[in-house]
């Protein structure tokens, strides 16, 4: 840690948490050397976090001070503004923009400086305060590149648009894979035969809810796993899943000749049908619901593997972003909603018309093609240009 010999007035502290094994940290370091020449009033404090437990703990505490999380390095802090990761020229531009803002004030709020016990600015202005006072069109130019004008809607931030679009797109592609659809159809055919609307709604709805729940549990578990895996290993894992999943999807596309339903696992299917018949004819409504939920959980748990890694890949990309818990929950909810949309349509039509509807397997075939291409692309980008997958530019 460098010894501070400068007066604190007009000096801007920049805190950098990095790892010796992190290539993006090296790239940011190169940029910081250039930035120091343009901003002689900055003081950079560097903390290596993989070899020092103390520094790792400091990084976590520093993030907590700013009410954020520090899952990835490099993790850079100026005042109350933090940057996670390194996205090339965009990160450099964002740091320079922040330094320009802070250069306007003689003092500012520096909670991390206080935490680290170094000489720090004792002002009260936060990043947002300084931005309101001093941001100009010139300084904002780089930020405005990520805002587009959409007809009839107005200005839209690309930063805010990308993750929802990805959630919907990948969720919908995953949903076209009718892994558990056959169970839903069989369940609905039995329920339609019973002509008991209340039972249909509750048992059918329970099946769909349980299916959503098992997906949610899987994705949250995967998201939490990312906290325990180093950045490089995480990216390699997601790249491997994406590449293998992409190949499997494309192979499925090229191998499928007719658009139709493949008959597999006859014994397993017959056992599931027997269970459905048993649960739906159960006199106790509560036992029937419990039976259907248990069935949905077991069927979907096994069928997650049939999605060829799509939910794991999506959650892996989400984990790379510095989001709040609510934002993670929102994007996962969006994914699951669009994943279930074909099931919801079939269920709604069955409830309304007491007839079963099918969605053509032609769409399934093309979902393998589109999904395969997207997964291969993501796998390759994760290796050569991972910063392009960071949608919070």
């Amino acid at each position, binding site marked *: 840690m460098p010894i501070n010999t400068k007066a604190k007035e007009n000096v801007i502290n920049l805190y950098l948490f990095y790892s010796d094994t992190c290539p993006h940290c090296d790239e940011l370091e190169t940029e910081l050397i250039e930035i120091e020449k343009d901003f002689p009033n900055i003081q950079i404090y560097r903390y290596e976090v993989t070899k020092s437990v103390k520094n790792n703990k400091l990084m976590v505490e520093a993030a907590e001070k700013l009410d954020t999380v520090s899952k990835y390095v490099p993790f850079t802090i100026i005042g109350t503004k933090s940057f996670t990761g390194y996205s090339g020229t965009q990160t450099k531009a964002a740091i320079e923009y922040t330094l320009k803002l802070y250069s306007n004030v003689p003092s500012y709020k520096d909670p991390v400086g206080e935490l680290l016990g170094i000489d720090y600015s004792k002002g009260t202005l936060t990043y947002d305060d300084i931005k309101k006072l001093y941001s100009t069109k010139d300084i904002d130019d780089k930020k405005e590149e990520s805002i587009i004008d959409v007809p009839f809607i107005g200005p839209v931030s690309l930063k805010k648009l990308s993750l929802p679009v990805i959630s919907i797109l990948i969720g919908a592609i995953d949903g076209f894979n009718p892994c558990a659809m056959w169970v839903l159809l069989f369940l609905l055919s039995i329920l339609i035969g019973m002509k008991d609307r209340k039972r249909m709604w509750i048992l059918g709805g329970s099946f769909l809810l349980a299916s959503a729940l098992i997906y949610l549990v899987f994705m949250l578990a995967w998201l939490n796993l990312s906290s325990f895996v180093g950045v490089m290993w995480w990216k390699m894992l997601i790249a491997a899943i994406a590449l293998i999943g992409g190949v499997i999807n494309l192979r499925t596309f090229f191998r499928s000749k007719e658009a*139709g339903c493949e008959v597999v696992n006859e014994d397993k299917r017959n056992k599931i049908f027997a269970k459905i018949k048993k649960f739906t004819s159960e006199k106790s409504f509560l036992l029937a619901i419990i039976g259907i939920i248990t069935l949905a959980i077991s069927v979907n748990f096994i069928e997650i593997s049939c999605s060829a890694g799509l939910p794991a890949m999506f959650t892996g990309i989400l984990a790379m972003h510095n989001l709040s818990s609510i934002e993670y929950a929102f994007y996962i909810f969006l994914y699951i909603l669009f994943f279930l949309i074909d099931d919801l349509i079939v269920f709604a039509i069955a409830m309304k018309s007491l007839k079963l509807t099918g969605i053509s397997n032609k769409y399934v075939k093309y979902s393998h093609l589109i999904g395969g291409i997207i997964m291969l692309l993501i796998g390759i980008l994760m290796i050569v240009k991972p910063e392009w997958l960071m949608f919070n530019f």
Partner: protein
Amino acid sequence: MKIITISAIWCPSCLVMRPRFEAITKKYPSIDYKTYDYDLDDGAKSYHPGNILPVFILIDKDNNECGRLIGEHSVNDLLELIEIHSQQGGQR
């Protein structure tokens, strides 16, 4: 001529084909139609349906299979199959 259809309750493609097949039955009401459920009807397996559903099998007047369509097809594909085999001597 006889047309055998092998489908399954759980098969979305079979549901998609249902209205198309109904159009055929309306166009050719004199053909003998028989539907088997792959899982529930023992007779289905005797026609060796394979592993893709639905399956449409044309049987001629001598009770021999003379044509087959597997999976999802358009109404025109079904009509073409019937027309070809009618011209080749199957009764309608």
